[in-house]
């Protein structure tokens, strides 16, 4: 019943978690390499989307992408579209606000860049179990603090969803009739505060529990989960992706200094 249940349902799910982390990271870096809108659009449609479809997570992905990027995108289009400084090609004027061509282009560029970031994160979230990612990263000797930050970021969504679900169930078990998406939203809106707070508290509790078990000490902790699947192919893929990211950064820096 979990909203973000991660199961071994596709070859993508079974990849080494670090491969997927490197993938998400490289795609994001590449997305920001060039200001043009075409570049992030191509990454979204030609790289991320096929990966998501292959993982069989398209529906969830679309819903979550819309949920997380819609507010930002709408705000961008309103602010940049109407109030782009130094706009020349005005399409429409509404009092002091002037909808400009330059503003819309800039909004689209920024929105697509942000969507690549969100989409890469969602890809990781939907195909990787945080605990396995954590053990894979610790096995490779990454700093426990970095491991923790990444895994906490991946867990906040699922923790939030699980908690929302438990509250809805409790309300129904107290006889409340909840029908459809509208009903859920109506039942949850008054609880948004405690809900978000609770999700953070849960993750905070986990962090505290980990600290009491000497998590964060410099010695490499022993992993209980045994070795995770890896292959030469994946090692090569990771190296290539990191090279791509480095190249993207180089292109970007070159563009700035030129």
């Amino acid at each position, binding site marked *: *019943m*979990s909203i973000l*249940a*991660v*199961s*071994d349902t596709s070859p993508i799910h079974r990849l080494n978690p670090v491969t997927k982390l490197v993938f998400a990271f490289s795609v994001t870096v590449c997305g920001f390499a060039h200001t043009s809108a075409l570049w992030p659009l191509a990454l979204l449609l030609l790289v991320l989307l096929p990966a998501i479809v292959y993982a069989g997570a398209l529906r969830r992905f679309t819903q979550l992408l819309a949920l997380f990027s819609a507010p930002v995108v709408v705000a961008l289009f309103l602010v940049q579209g109407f109030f782009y400084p130094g706009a020349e090609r005005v399409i429409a004027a509404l009092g002091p606000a002037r909808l400009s061509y330059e503003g819309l282009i800039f909004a689209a560029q920024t929105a697509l860049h942000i969507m690549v970031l969100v989409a890469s994160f969602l890809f990781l979230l939907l195909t990787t179990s945080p605990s396995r990612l954590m053990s894979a990263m610790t096995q490779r000797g990454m700093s426990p603090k970095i491991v923790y930050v990444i895994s906490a970021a991946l867990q906040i969504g699922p923790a939030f969803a699980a*908690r929302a679900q*438990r*509250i809805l*169930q*409790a*309300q*129904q*078990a*107290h*006889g*409340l*009739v*909840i029908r459809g998406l509208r009903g859920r939203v109506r039942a949850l809106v*008054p*609880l948004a505060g*405690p809900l978000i707070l*609770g999700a953070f508290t849960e993750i905070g509790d986990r962090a505290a529990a980990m600290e009491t078990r000497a998590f964060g000490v410099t010695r490499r902790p022993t992993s209980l989960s045994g070795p995770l699947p890896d292959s030469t192919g994946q090692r090569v893929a990771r190296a290539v992706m990191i090279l791509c990211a480095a190249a993207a950064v180089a292109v970007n820096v070159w563009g700035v200094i030129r």
Partner: protein
Amino acid sequence: MILSIDSLTYAYANGTPALNGVTFQVAAGERVAVVGSNGAGKSTLARHLVGIERPTSGTVEVEGRRTDELSIAELARSVGFVFQNPHDQLHARTVAKAVEFGPRNLGFTAEQRARACEWALRVTGLTHHAQDHPHHLSFGQRKRVALASVLAMDTPLVVLDEPTTGQDHRSLALLGSLLGELAEEGRTVIAVTHDMEFCVQHFERVIVLERGRVRWDGTVEQWLAADATALPADGSRDDAAERSGPPTDLERPQLTRLARELGWSAPVATVDAFLSELRERTPSVPAN
């Protein structure tokens, strides 16, 4: 039968098997403790009784109606379910409002509501906290608010998931007498617990779950007397469980173990029973 479970098997969406062919019935008015170690499937089983979880296969019937054909809200008229974690069900500004939530949803009249809430707050020892914010209470108190919010719905079946967690001695005594009161009213109580003292003091029947299977089902007296390596409910050896490891030796209450160490044959679980047995065996122990 108020509750009838037949070959209930359940696996979580991620593939974790949680229940495996669970079958038992509960008659109206019974007090049943479902015990077992962590991860045995107790909470999963309890959640099936209110329809929060639906069987992968097999059936659960409450008052003769299959739970998979009813919504959670419909089942709430028959089954009051107290969640293991009180944080998930308290969302009102005052204790009184939290307790009123269920009766309101079930369409109680103002008068019925007032009576049900007054009673529920009294029997859980919360009358003086009625106007407090639930988040300002201790964990144990919050658990009792959750209990009160379910009792107020006046359901024939009450299911409690780990009711003793975080309760001090006084609250435990209160909980015990409350269970007695419910029994007198003819209500059925099923509690999931790993607190054996609590189990033998307040329940008449014990069902032992182990790795999603019913390992043992009988009266408290039979269970106390039974060997630690008790046979499963149907009396046959459960080969699968046998192969995957030794059977759970659920800790019997300390007095029971002491009596057993002393070689007494009669099962003993309470201080009173222990003293009377001791006096019988050792006339020099004075009666008080």
